[in-house]
């Protein structure tokens, strides 16, 4: 238990000490909110689908969580390259605890980052429908963060260096984001896109935040919870297995 805690604490300390990273990773969501929010807002309005910012804000929060979570998982590669991973791997602590500590740390960071993006959306003019649902929103944010941190860790367990980084960015993170319906309504999208979106786990995250923050639901919040929960479980199991197989 203390091992999980100290690994979690380490991730948090590292995060809080890299101010430039915190601010840097707010740049992209800010850009999406300003460029897309204000740019597409009027068209959205004309199409009669409602306020685009209400629609977009949960999507951009999800994006912030997705990126931070995957990259804190992938952070494992840094630890491997800088040697710190060895220090944890030879310690008399089950690798499962190490994996869980790291993942919880990464997920906490991603959730905090999501909260920062939420604050950003408030500054830009977004107003949540029902403040009483905020705890539920935060729970979903954490679940999403957990899923993607575990995914990042699982992937990083099989990588030796950053050669594959671009591949992950372009063939995993970007598609997860753009095909999730974070930016556009899925109902009016072509069927093939709808099918892809249904396979994309981020769609359920986006939907859960959209339901609890803006009152717009397409997939159903119960389905969202079920899909995210089960997937998190599966990815954690696979990730722990891959992590336990790491050799230096």
């Amino acid at each position: 238990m203390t091992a999980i805690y100290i690994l979690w604490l380490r991730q948090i300390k590292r995060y809080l000490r890299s101010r430039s990273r915190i601010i840097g990773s707010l740049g992209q969501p800010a850009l999406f909110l300003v460029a897309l929010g204000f740019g597409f807002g009027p068209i959205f309005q004309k199409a009669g689908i409602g306020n685009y910012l209400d629609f977009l804000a949960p999507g951009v929060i999800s994006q912030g969580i997705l990126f931070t979570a995957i990259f804190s998982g992938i952070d494992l590669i840094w630890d491997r390259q800088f040697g710190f991973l060895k220090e944890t791997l030879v310690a008399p602590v089950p690798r499962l605890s190490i994996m869980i500590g790291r993942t919880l740390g990464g997920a906490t960071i991603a959730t905090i980052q999501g909260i920062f993006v939420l604050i950003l959306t408030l500054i830009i003019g977004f107003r949540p429908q029902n403040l009483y649902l905020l705890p539920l929103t935060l729970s979903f944010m954490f679940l999403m963060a957990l899923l993607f941190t575990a995914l990042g860790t699982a992937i990083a367990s099989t990588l030796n260096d950053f050669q594959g980084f671009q591949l992950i960015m372009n063939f995993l993170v970007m598609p997860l984001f753009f095909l999730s319906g974070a930016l556009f309504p899925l109902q009016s999208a072509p069927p093939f896109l709808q099918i892809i979106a249904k396979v994309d786990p981020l769609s359920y995250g986006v939907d859960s935040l959209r339901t609890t923050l803006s009152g717009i639901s397409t997939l159903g919040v119960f389905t969202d919870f079920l899909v995210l929960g089960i997937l998190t479980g599966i990815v954690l199991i696979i990730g722990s297995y891959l992590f336990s197989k790491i050799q230096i």
Partner: protein
Amino acid sequence: MANMKAAIMVRNLTKKFYNFTAVDNISFEVEGGEIFAFLGPNGAGKSTTIKMLTTLLNPTSGEVEIAGVNPIKNQDAARKNFGIVFQDPSLDDELTAYENMEFHGILYKVDKKTRQTRIEELLKIVELWDRKNDLVKTFSGGMRRRLEIARGLLHHPKIFFLDEPTVGLDPQTRNQIWNYILNLNKKEDITIFFTTHYMEEAEKVAGRVAIIDHGKIISQGTVLKLKEQTHSKSLEDAFLSLTGKNIREEEANPQDRMRLRHNMWRKNK
């Protein structure tokens, strides 16, 4: 089967990376409480052997026991019995010196009170107590090395692996650190297994020595025996006469080799 007294038992241990044999059918035993030097030129297979002894790498074939525990089958149990100082850096740059120590102490379940006394004691020995609250990324190479040794000594393990622990340190610090290690060895009967390129260091502290070259152990025994065997005056001369005087190319380590072959997707063999 195994000698009950043996702290480390290695039998016919082999590690192959694809068609390269890093460690070639080596056998040796280290008894409890012994100080054992594992010597060899660069790229001889020292670090690969240590990695196999410390659960970081699975052998291709052969048997290993660490304090009677098989580190391949029973990793967690084996890890409880040893401590290690790695050849290459393994500190967290974004944490302070104290936090690095604290992290280690908690992972190794050293209770709070012991942890605090020992961290202070050790950081004072390596003269980093004044810098305890500075981030490691501000430290020089020598300071990092000192911190790593202090950290490795924080929990008093049954077996202590030191992979070139004193490289890049000045004689004063080296002397201090060896005194602390020797004292531990005497007081707590800790087995010491170390590699070094400083032959006079090995000659001074090691009870027994094994010399490995090209993955094979070419000689082992007491320092005296090795000197007699090669008719040499010092261990350095014995070492040179056993391994030859040619300078070894510092070859890419096995991990680099793997990286070259498999740019990104790792394959376990």
